[in-house]
């Protein structure tokens, strides 16, 4: 008898919790839940600032940080989040997930770095081993693209996840040729000036991160989406004009208050370099970016089929961007 009572109690408790969860999720329906597949860092400060500005315009944004981009995409597909950050091309093409990208946040910024004692140019890498992030990653696609363009052939592509790990391996001499990110590049230049050569990389334009959401959400929350897109585009333009403004925003909106001093000093140079390199998409990507991505991601294996046969509208919803650009102008 007592056991039955206990199970009844447990059942009631479970029911109560379930109802409470449903009620709370209904109450928060007005919130825009954004999922980010990484921990917040210096590299996402400008995005956090842009979200703060969208909040000022009346969009209630709730950020959640997940372990990987992949899980963020699943959360959006599953309806547990509204907007994700990433480039879910494969997910859209292969499982026909009803999600669309609506704004490009950044393009891939990587720097092929080689040890100057051994190699000087791309041609020197013919028949040599290079290290990239992982199979099917953007870094691998970049290296394969350069292999094609330069008419060379690597003997082997090895996989070392994490740009900071590859930077460390280059510095220690375990790896002679690899591809690193901008902070890795700066580390190479400060730790071993003149030892490493950054090989030229031209015409590689692919989305690194974009905002995406369920088609349903994009239809129903057009006003909120427009405000977010506008906030980001204006933020990106301001950062490009005056990179140091990011530090001011950090203070104003109290972003990443626990950042260690060494990383605080990184903020200035990081945005300075990106602004100089015109790394921030000032018009949100759209169809032009999608076409570039088709070419790049078919090469990396994320997308299959002929790039020319892929349709922009299957991956992107450009309407929010069109509306905002009509208002703020194209750059």
């Amino acid at each position: 008898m007592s056991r039955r009572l206990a199970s009844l109690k447990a059942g009631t408790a479970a029911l109560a919790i379930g109802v409470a969860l449903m009620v709370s999720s209904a109450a928060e329906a007005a919130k825009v839940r954004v999922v980010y597949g990484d921990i917040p860092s210096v590299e996402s400060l400008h995005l956090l600032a842009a979200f703060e500005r969208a909040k000022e315009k009346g969009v209630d944004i709730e950020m959640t940080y997940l372990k990987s981009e992949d899980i963020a995409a699943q959360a959006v597909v599953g309806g547990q989040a509204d907007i994700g950050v990433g480039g879910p091309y494969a997910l859209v093409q292969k499982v026909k997930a009803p999600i669309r990208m609506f704004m490009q946040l950044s393009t891939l910024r990587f720097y092929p770095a080689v040890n100057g004692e051994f190699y000087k140019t791309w041609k020197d890498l013919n028949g040599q081993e290079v290290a990239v992030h992982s199979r099917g990653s953007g870094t691998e696609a970049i290296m394969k693209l350069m292999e094609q363009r330069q008419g060379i052939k690597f003997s082997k592509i090895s996989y070392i996840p994490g740009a900071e790990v590859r930077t460390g391996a280059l510095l220690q001499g375990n790896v002679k040729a690899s591809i690193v990110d901008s902070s890795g590049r700066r580390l190479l230049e400060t730790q071993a000036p003149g030892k490493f050569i950054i090989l030229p990389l031209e015409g590689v334009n692919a989305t690194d991160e974009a905002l995406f959401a369920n088609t349903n959400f994009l239809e129903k929350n057009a006003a909120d989406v427009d405000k977010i897109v506008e906030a980001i585009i204006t933020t990106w333009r301001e950062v490009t004009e005056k990179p140091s403004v990011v530090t001011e925003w950090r203070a104003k909106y109290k972003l990443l208050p626990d950042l260690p001093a060494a990383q605080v000093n990184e903020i200035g140079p990081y945005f300075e370099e990106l602004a100089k390199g015109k790394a921030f998409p000032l018009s949100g990507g759209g169809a032009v970016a999608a076409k570039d991505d088709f070419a790049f991601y078919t090469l990396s294996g994320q997308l299959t089929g002929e790039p020319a046969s892929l349709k922009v509208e299957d991956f992107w919803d450009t309407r929010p961007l069109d509306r905002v650009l009509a208002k703020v102008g194209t750059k």
Partner: protein
Amino acid sequence: MASSQVNGPARAVHSPAGWGLSLGRLFTQHPIASRVVSLGLFFLMWEIAGRVPISYAFPTFLETLSAFVTMLFDGSLFVAYGSTLQPLIIGIAISGVVGVALGIVMGLSRTAEWLVAPLFIVLQSAPMAALIPLITFVYGIGLAAKTLAVIMLALPVIVLNGYKAVRNANPSLVAMCYSFQGTKLQQIAKIIIPDASPVIFAGLRLGLAAGFIGVILAELLITPTGIGDLITYHRSVANYAEMYAAVVSIILVSTLTLAALEAFEVRVLRPEKRRG
């Protein structure tokens, strides 16, 4: 499937009685039949769940099966297991030798027990998935780190099983050895270790099962190689059927290996179990 023979030879079924009864008898006399039905039902549920679908990322059973067959024939599974088995075999070999030796010493000596047992009891209950990334801080991302991950999971099970087996060796057998004026060495080599060997072997089997978990954790958390690479790669390009096929292949390989070991154990070390 080797273990199915363990429960006795198959006998013919002649049942004039109704369906329910004959089905029940079929299951008791052919244990393999119940297993096939159970698996079949599971696959059916999977297929239905995949067709509903419960998630865009959840493939049906048939899609997964076809991906599995494709990966089997294009050789990618074999290549993957070639590199996955490397740290697994090295790690299990080290854990086996060190673990059995340590277990026996701990079983025989109270001092050794006090010194070492707490460490392994703590290790056994530690959240290994959280500890494995720490290995990389010391041992980097190569074979050594992965082998260590296997050892961290396999060793405690093997040590603790060995130690309990030796400690709980049949006292009347030990007393018999004593009354026949057996030396201490004879007592250990001829009575205690043979008596403990079935449980030690069971510990090795459980250690291998833990080693499988360790190597897959290492491949997912340290660097993607072998089967861990297949899982992460297919996940990153949204080939979910291939991803599930890789996961299922691990379950299949570890189940078959463990079943074979169990059959060996029952046949060679515990003949009394065969009659049961």
